[in-house]
């Protein structure tokens, strides 16, 4: 996997959020900006690692993501807001946690296609919706999944979290969560509406 030269000194040993300890000597400081340590926010986000998913993995990811978060009155389909791409990017990132997630997710996608082949002799994304639902219903809840479906259930739990994470961290969908921020407001901060304060009995606090 290509990683930017010079970032080997990043020192990702130790716990996720960056432990103390010795780092290797770095190359001479250069005045140019580093896309990770010192991003240039005026430019669009640089994605400095190669995305790893194959075309088939992306198809499977898309099919499953759109099943988990379909197009409806409460927003677009997951694939319409870049969720498969986000999952690909997440699993391709070089950090320890992402490496772990990548194994679960890519292994799970393979498991899903194998299960789909066993049942219907087709890849998951080639199935009809009803057939997909049959499989997903068997793996959607890891507390009640059968032993032979446990792998799929563990994968589904993680995959569902990544779908949610990628779906709602988007300015096109976050209103469906009830998030209405990221807008400038003149004057004093308005705060919560008075009716809401009173409805919750918080007016004399």
């Amino acid at each position, binding site marked *: 996997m290509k990683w930017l030269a010079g970032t080997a000194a990043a020192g990702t040993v130790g716990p996720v959020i960056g432990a103390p*300890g010795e780092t290797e000597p770095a190359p001479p400081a250069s005045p140019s900006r580093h896309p990770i340590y010192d991003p240039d926010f005026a430019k669009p986000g640089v994605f400095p690692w190669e995305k790893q998913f194959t075309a088939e993995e992306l198809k499977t990811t898309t099919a499953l993501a759109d099943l988990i978060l379909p197009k409806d009155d409460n927003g677009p389909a997951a694939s319409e807001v870049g969720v498969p791409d986000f999952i690909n990017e997440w699993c391709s990132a070089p950090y320890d946690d992402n490496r772990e997630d990548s194994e679960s997710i890519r292994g799970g996608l393979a498991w899903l296609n194998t299960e789909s082949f066993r049942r219907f002799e087709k890849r998951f994304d080639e199935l009809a919706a009803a057939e997909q639902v049959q499989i997903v219903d068997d793996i959607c809840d890891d507390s009640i999944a059968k032993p032979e479906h446990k792998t799929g259930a563990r994968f589904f739990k993680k995959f569902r979290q990544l779908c949610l994470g990628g779906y709602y961290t988007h300015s096109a969908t976050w209103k469906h969560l009830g998030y209405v921020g*990221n807008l400038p407001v003149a004057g004093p901060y308005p705060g919560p509406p008075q009716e809401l304060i009173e409805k919750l009995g918080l007016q004399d606090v």
Partner: protein
Amino acid sequence: MPILTDRKTQTQYDAIVVGSGAGGGMAALILALNGAKVLMIEAGRNYDPVTETPMFHTPEQAPLRGERTPDRVFGHYDATIGGWQVAGEPYTNKPGTEGAFWWWRARMLGGRTNHWGRISLRFGPHDFRCASRDGLGVDWPMSYDDMHPWYDRVEKLIGVYGENDGIENAPNSSPGILQPPPKPRIGELMAKKAGKGLGVPIVAAHRAVLSQPLDGARLAKELFPSNAKAQEIIARDMSMRAPCFWATNCVRGCSIRANFQSTTVLIPAALATGNLDIITDAMVREVIVGKDGKATGVHYIDKPTRRDMVAKAKVVILAASTCETSRILLNSKSLDQAGLANSSGQVGKNLMDSVGTTLGSHIPAMEDLPPYNEDGAGGIHVYSPWWLVREHAKLGFPRGYHIEMGGGRQMPSAKNFGVLDSKAPGVYGSKLKEEARRYYGANFGFAGRGEMVPNKDCYAELDPNVVDQWGIPVLRFHWKWSDHEIKQAEHMQNTFAELLTAMGGKATPKSGRDAIQRPGEIIHEVGTARMGAKASESVTNQFCQTWDVKNLFLMDGAVLPSNPDKNPTLTILALAWRSSEWLMEEMKKGTM
């Protein structure tokens, strides 16, 4: 070398200021406004919040939707260049010491003031005489009354919102200074109600964020009554800052200059005097001392060219951040292998960080609330000042902590949905969207920031074997929490659990040992060159002047002899201003 001003650097300055953050920025401003020629030397790069802050940038524009990574520990959009690890600038922890200290460096003009939380609390009367009250640690060499007018000045200059609540040891500002705080959000009102039942006060937070425009003309006249040029410069600069428009979290910085960062509140006015030169990308190795024992300047390395250089001045002010300042002193060995200004042996000692723990919970009563914009001031609107000031006999631990809190619907991040694993297992499809909406933002959490007692096991020294990429010996840290801090952490957890339960949530408090966050993780490290009343026991006097070298000053967190339950930045600003004015008087008298 990058020079930010269009003059070449001079051969001799009145003062060199090492560091451009709270202390360095304030020292440079006050000296420059008073006509001194100042050279500021910053180890990081030039950084301009006005052009560089990602205001309104959305998550989908960032790698991993802006999520925290080991490279961007507070998220992609956080205004930090640096962190607990800086490539090529390692530090070590002595093997066998109990806690590994995490040392934060912000390598950018303005330092940590670019990404801090803007929480601005005054130290209180008890804090300055802490040892007289409970026999632990040391007293400060001055009282709250000495500092009160300087806190007033700083709050006027930078703009702080909050209220005067008349709480013991959380002092009021003089009337007319604090700006109106933003209204509390729903979760905060619920917490406040829960707090009432438990005797925990929850009041308006104090933060360096403008909620109103500054009346530059009036304030500048009050702050600099006998300096017409200063009035003109400060009035003009203040009037160019816009009040907060309640969007974009403060940790990103602020392009409209609504919050305090050295880069938008101190440095522009200092540059406008024409008396300040700034060099960036320059790492100071040591203070140079003449045969008479006085400082003559600093030896630094210009990072891009890797050339050694010397800058000369009549006065040297170190404000490179707590441990970096001590490191420079320890590495300045021309007179003494023990380092410069270290006849007391205290340099590197008495390192402190805040005691920190967190606890949060899902809150059912916050589900399915009608949406309203909860961004607010990009940080806390309320907090709890320490309320058990007189209860120490019962508590079993000294000192105290304040509580920060928050929850509700903030800008979504990728890891906000873990709650659905337990609340909506097995759900997918349209129903999942309903559940996501139901539970999103229905949570609240508390974070404590407490006072630790300095102890002999927490200190920094030079590592005998390791140098950084510039060849400068690095620091080696030693750390051990005492029972005082562990018990305090436990009290925090129990208090938070009670509050969350009273709000209808459910949270299991952790033990003190499990809950206490890592040393250095709160990034309030202070001490290592404490001020004091006696030269034998301290490194500087109350005006940040080192006892041993009369023209050497330390104006950052290194001089704090205690680390009260209040964030240190406001005090660092007040000390730097007070000390700089004293220094100006001494320079006029000719004692420098």
